């Protein structure tokens, strides 16, 4: 099987699984317990926190463990909105965010917040000018994904951060779920985000793990209350095996970042050239300026599912858009925002690479795809 759906989820690294199981077996105590065993387990937790803080360049007390990317995004949005509503109720985001951001904002709109959505160009990138124009005195939050999960567009985070911090008091939340481990993701004073959200299972970590991290201490209300774990901001017994496994996945991803980046870029560019040989039959949604692990394309007048099934029969796993909404039949909001030609709206396919893919699979894919095109389009 050729698994090209790494943006939906990834196969965990063996070392990560091993770590997870070892901690489960040998360090099961509750890190909040004050006995020696609890203290020992808490040390493991803090070591994991330190490692991650080091990678993203913030203080350990600004790194909180969550149950995943969705919780982290919800936490950032609801937490900041709630705690800063005395300053204002104006929020800016983009049209192409992940559902865990957009759905949270829909809820806030019902609660009387005013949310504005930045448009994107046909490459999926926002305009800094539009951002500048939309920023107001009462803007309390800007949410922006670093890398789009459906087609890989990279947003100009640094420029956006500078504008936001210069022109407003807004907190800048960057959803780095698709970028962490693939691009440099870290805090950088006023030239970077105030909040970063990260998920474990997208970087060959395990499911049910995530992080929300802060550049500095900021006004944010907890989403989950109770025992007061995680500096009082995220209650619930901290799953230490998951935390340690996540730190390991983060470390491995960071260590292999350059190597994977080069590899993915080569494959992406190569496949783009390959798709271009089909001329008018294929439209590329991704560009060479995007993140190299995601390549979205569409086949003229075909439904995505038809292509997926044809590929799957031959052992290639790809997806239509994001897994979270892949069961829904309607056109993805990202495809809508990109103004894709109507002939190509329904046939969007996402290929996403992971650390475990090989060059040989790229070549195999090309042969298989040629077969599929012959079968479905007669070309």
């Amino acid at each position: 099987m050729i698994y090209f759906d790494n943006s939906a989820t990834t196969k965990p690294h063996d070392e990560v699984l091993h770590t997870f199981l070892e901690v489960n077996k040998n360090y099961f105590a509750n890190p909040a317990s004050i006995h020696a065993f609890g203290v020992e387990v808490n040390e493991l937790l803090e070591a994991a926190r330190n490692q991650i803080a080091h990678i993203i360049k913030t203080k350990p007390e600004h790194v909180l463990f969550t149950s995943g990317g969705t919780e982290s995004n919800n936490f950032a949005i609801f937490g900041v909105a709630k705690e800063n509503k005395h300053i204002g109720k104006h929020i800016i985001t983009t049209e192409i965010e992940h559902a865990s951001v957009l759905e949270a904002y829909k809820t806030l709109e019902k609660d009387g917040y005013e949310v504005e959505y930045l448009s994107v160009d046909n490459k999926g990138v926002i305009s800094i000018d539009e951002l500048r124009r939309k920023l107001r005195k009462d803007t309390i939050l800007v949410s922006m994904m670093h890398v789009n999960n459906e087609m890989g567009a990279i947003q100009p985070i640094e420029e956006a951060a500078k504008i936001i911090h210069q022109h407003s008091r807004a907190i800048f939340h960057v959803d780095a779920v698709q970028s962490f481990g693939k691009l440099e993701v870290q805090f950088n004073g006023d030239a970077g985000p105030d909040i970063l959200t990260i998920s474990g299972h997208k970087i060959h970590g395990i499911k049910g793990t995530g992080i929300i991290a802060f550049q500095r201490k900021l006004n944010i209300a907890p989403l989950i209350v109770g025992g007061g774990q995680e500096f009082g901001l995220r209650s619930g017994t901290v799953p230490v095996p998951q935390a340690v496994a996540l730190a390991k996945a983060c470390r491995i991803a960071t260590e292999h970042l350059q190597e994977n980046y080069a590899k993915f870029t080569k494959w992406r560019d190569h496949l783009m050239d390959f798709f271009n040989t089909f001329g008018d039959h294929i439209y590329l949604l991704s560009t060479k300026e995007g993140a190299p692990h995601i390549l979205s394309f569409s086949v003229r007048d075909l439904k995505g599912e038809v292509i997926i099934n044809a590929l799957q029969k031959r052992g290639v796993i790809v997806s239509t858009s994001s897994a979270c909404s892949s069961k829904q039949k309607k056109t993805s909001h990202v495809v809508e925002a990109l103004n894709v030609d109507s002939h190509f709206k329904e046939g969007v396919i996402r290929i996403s690479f992971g650390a475990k893919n090989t060059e040989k699979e790229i070549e195999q894919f090309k042969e298989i795809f040629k077969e599929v095109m012959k079968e479905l389009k007669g070309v």
Partner: protein
Amino acid sequence: MQTFYLDHAATSPVHPEVINSMTEVMARVYGNPSSIHAAGRSARKILDEARSILAQSIGAKDTEIILTSGGTEADNTAIFGVAQALKSKGKHIITTSVEHHAVLHACEQLEKAGFEVTYLPVNENGRISVESVKNALRADTILVTIMYGNNEVGTIQPIKEIGELLKDHQAIFHTDAVQAYGLEKIDINELHVDLLSVSSHKINGPKGIGFLYQREKTPLVATFYGGSQERKRRAGTENVHAAVGFAKAVEISQREMEKRQETYLQFRTIFLNVLNREQITYKVNGDHEYFLKHILNISFPGMDVESFLVNLDMDGVYASSGSACTAGSIDPSHVLVAMFGKGASELRNSIRFSFGLGLTKEDVEIAAERTAKIVKRMTNS
């Protein structure tokens, strides 16, 4: 030095069979259950099977189980979810003064948002009366949230009777069964509860997963928004391997429930017999008829909990002063305050011992002996 873990109510060791089931599934299945391709579908199938086991354990339907990141999230979802959904029908909530903080702090937050919360008192044994629930009920009560068994002293509340009482009232009935699940037989239809919270790591499953049982049609607003997972009631990629481990732990705990109850009752007797034999003065906190078998909370007159715990720790006996979540700071337990009043000596001299997987009679005997020795040394008796 041999150490003895008597803090199973804080968290419990993961059962080897649970580890095996997770190892197996992690090596084989890694798709996203929401993906429509084969890798996704095989993950979905495994998740569905796990959900089914969870549902069956309490007599629920598969669709009534919402997987969460743990007991705290389940409690929060129940409380915030009902409050949001029913605020037009009323803003009154009933709970008890001995709930877990996941419930209490959620209620406190709702108070700040304009809800009115009645905290029912408990008797010296930590039990509320059905009568007090009845008296507190109002036409605008929308939620009654009462824990099944207390995490600090083990007292079991009259859930079934309260369920009966609420049958004809609009109020939604939620019970936090985190400490009781797996040790007590729970049937949601017998109890007449609408919502019930469960955590995996208290029953030898993995941490970071739990579930909220939601009776069909019970109004509930979601806490997490995003993808359409968990029938739109809880967004976020499903935690497949943890769900599988959780289901395995549930299978084992359901199978071995009676045996475990018997074993823990024996452990209690052994522990207390040692204290008797050593002529230690003590008092068991909690109810002597309605209690969770694995929790033994003892007050030792003349002792001080902080130095007591340090000494127990040095002698390799891992116990607790109350719930682990608040153990970091040794504030007096709100449960003991509710039972004995502010300033009572029990607040300063009570220790919770809790039993679980892997402990033997011999272990309990030695741990009790070490405890007795410390008490003697520290009280010079």
